[in-house]
C-alpha cells in the first residue's frame, strides 16, 4: 500500500459547523429533532416503567382521560395514547430516514452517471427524472401501495405482516423521492466535471472510476447532505398521508399517520386524538426543514 500520510482536512467541516451553529432556527431544529428521537426510543422503557401494554385494547377504558399511568389518556380502543405516539414516532422517523437513504442511493447513482458521462445518457436520465417530478405522485403511490404482494409471489403471511408494510412503504417512497437528489447531484457533478482539477486528473492518466470516487464524489458530498435533509421532511409527510389514507403502515402497528386515520371520524367527540399525532408530524417536519435550510446556508460554496 502506498502509505503516504494522508492529512484529512477537517477545516471545511469545522467552518460549516460554525456557520450552522450561528443559525438559531436551524440549531433549535436540531435540538427538537434529537428530542423527538429520544422521545420515540423511550417508548419501550416507559411502557415497562408504567407497567402498561399500549397494544392491549381495553374497550372499557375507551376515551378515558388522563391518569397516573396513562398520561395522555386512552384512544377509541382504550389503548394508551402517549405510548402509541412514541412507538408511532419510531415508525414515522424510521420510514423517513430509511426511504431517504434508499432514495439517496438511487439519486446519487443516477445523478453521478448523468452528470459525469453527459451526452445522450444525461439527456435520457434527466428527461426521465423530470417526467417523474411532473407526475401527480400521490395517486401513483396509492396505486403502488395497493398492490397485492401475494400476486408477486410473496406468502400471504408475509404480505399481511407489519414488516411488509414497513418495507413496502420505504421502497415505494424511495422510488419517487430520489429525483431531487439526482438533480442536485447531477448539477454539482456537471460543474465539478468541468473543473480543471478533474481535467488534470484525466491528463495524468487516472481512470473513470478513480476520478469519480476520488475527485468527484468527495466534492459533491455537501450538496448530497443538503438534498437529503430537504427530502427527509417531504418523505415523512408522504408516509403520514399514505398511512392516513390506509395505504401505509398497517394497524395495529402505530404510525402518526394511521393514528390520525382512526381519529378522523371521531374528530368531533375526541379532538385531542387528532391533534396530538398531527402536531408531532408538524413539529418533526418543521424541525427537519429548519435543519435542511441551515445546512444549505452553511454549505453554500459562496460562503467557503
Amino acid at each position, binding site marked *: 500500500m502506498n502509505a503516504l500520510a494522508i492529512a484529512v482536512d477537517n477545516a471545511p467541516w469545522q467552518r460549516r459547523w460554525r456557520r450552522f451553529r450561528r443559525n438559531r432556527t436551524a440549531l433549535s431544529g436540531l435540538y427538537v429533532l434529537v428530542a423527538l428521537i429520544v422521545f420515540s426510543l423511550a417508548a419501550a422503557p416507559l411502557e415497562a416503567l408504567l407497567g402498561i401494554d399500549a397494544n392491549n385494547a381495553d374497550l372499557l377504558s375507551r376515551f378515558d382521560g388522563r391518569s397516573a399511568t396513562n398520561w395522555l389518556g386512552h384512544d377509541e380502543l382504550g389503548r394508551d395514547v402517549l405510548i402509541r405516539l412514541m412507538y408511532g414516532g419510531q415508525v414515522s422517523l424510521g420510514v423517513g430516514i430509511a426511504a431517504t437513504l434508499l432514495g439517496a442511493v438511487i439519486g446519487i447513482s443516477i445523478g453521478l452517471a448523468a452528470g459525469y458521462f453527459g451526452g445522450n445518457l444525461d439527456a435520457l436520465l434527466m428527461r426521465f427524472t423530470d417526467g417523474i417530478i411532473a407526475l401527480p405522485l400521490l395517486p401513483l403511490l396509492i396505486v403502488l401501495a395497493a398492490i397485492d404482494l401475494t400476486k408477486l409471489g410473496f406468502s400471504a403471511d408475509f404480505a399481511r405482516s407489519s414488516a411488509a408494510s414497513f418495507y413496502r412503504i420505504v421502497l415505494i417512497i424511495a422510488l419517487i423521492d430520489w429525483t431531487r437528489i439526482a438533480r442536485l447531484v447531477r448539477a454539482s457533478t456537471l460543474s465539478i466535471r468541468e*473543473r*480543471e482539477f478533474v481535467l488534470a*486528473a484525466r*491528463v*495524468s*492518466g487516472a*481512470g473513470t472510476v478513480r476520478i469519480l470516487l476520488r475527485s468527484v464524489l468527495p*466534492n459533491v458530498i455537501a450538496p448530497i447532505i443538503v438534498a437529503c435533509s430537504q427530502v427527509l421532511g417531504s418523505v415523512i409527510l408522504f408516509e403520514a398521508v399514505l398511512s392516513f389514507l390506509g395505504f401505509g403502515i398497517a394497524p395495529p402497528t402505530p404510525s402518526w399517520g394511521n393514528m390520525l386515520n382512526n381519529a378522523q371520524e371521531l374528530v368531533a367527540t375526541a379532538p385531542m386524538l387528532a391533534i396530538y399525532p398531527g402536531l408531532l408530524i408538524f413539529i418533526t417536519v418543521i424541525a427537519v426543514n429548519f435543519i435542511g435550510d441551515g445546512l444549505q446556508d452553511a454549505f453554500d460554496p459562496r460562503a467557503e
Partner: protein
Amino acid sequence: MTALLSVKDLTISFPVGRVNLFTGHRRAIHAVQDVSFDIASGETLALVGESGCGKTTAGRAIAGLYKAPKGAISFRGQDILDLPRASRRTVRRAIQMIFQDPFSSLDPRMTVSEILSDPLKVNGIGNAQEIRERVQDLIGQVGLPADTLNRHPHEFSGGQRQRIAIARALAPEPQIVVADEPLSALDVSVQSQVLNLLGALKRQRGLSYLFISHDLAAVHHIADRVAVMYLGRLVEIAGRDALFAAPRHPYTQGLLAAVPRIGHRRRRRSLIEGDLPGPLAIPSGCGFHPRCPLAKDICRRERPELKSHAGDRAHLAACHFAGEAL
C-alpha cells in the same frame, strides 16, 4: 530534425442543440479544423488567437482530453490517437498540461502532497519511499518550501498555486507540457515569476511547450515559434522574430497592431473592424474576409491554403495576398 510532436489535420467538432427529429443528426460546430503543426524537442510553440478561436480545444485534444478527434497526433512518430489500451498510459505520460485557473485546477480536498503524488501513483511510478522523495524534489524545483506539502490549496496565493500546478504537471516526467493560458488568472506582479520558472524548467529539463495564450507580449517572451488561429483554423505560423517583425496575414497584422504597448499614446490601433462571427455562422471562403481590410472577391469564394510565401519556407500564411508586398 524530426518532430517530437506532430499534429496533422486535427479536427474537433462538438454537437450542439438537440437531435433533429427528421434526420437523427445534431448540428456540429467545428472548434478546430484541419490544424497541422510540429513541435521539436526543446522547442516552445505558442498558439495564439482570440477567445473562441479553438486554441484551448486544440491543446486539450493534444493532452488527450477528447475522445477520438479526427486527424492524427503523433509523438516520436507514434500515432497516439490509435494506441492499444495497454500502452496508452505510458505514452500519454509524456504529454502533461498546466491549466489556466490555479484556483480551479487543484482539488480543494487534497493536500499538496496528495496532489503531487496522485499522478505518480496512477502511473505506477515508484514505491512509497520513492514517491515521497520525488514529491519533495518536485516542490523544491518549482521554488516552494517543503512544508508546503502538508497544506491545502486554499492556503496559497494564485502564483503559488500555479507553481503547485506546474509541479504536478512535471510529476510524470513529461517531455511536452501544454500550458493553457497559465498567466491570465495571475496578478501582474507574479506573472513574471511564473514565466521565468517556465523558462528555467525548459532549460534544465529540455522540455517542449505548447504555450497557449492571448497575451502576445508573453508569447514574444517565451516562444520559439508562433502559430496564429482564427475561427478554428491556423492562419499563420512562423518563427517568433519573423512573425512579430513581418506578419503576413492581415489578421496577425491587426492582432499585433491592437496589442497595447507602453509609451505608444493615442495611435491608430484598430485595423480590424467588426466582431468575431458566431461559431454557427462561419463565413464562406476565407473566414476572415468580413473583417479584413484587404478582402477581395476571391476571399469570399475560395479558402486560401496555408503555404509559404516569398521564399521563407518556415513562414506559412493562409491568405490569398500574403505573397504581395506589404
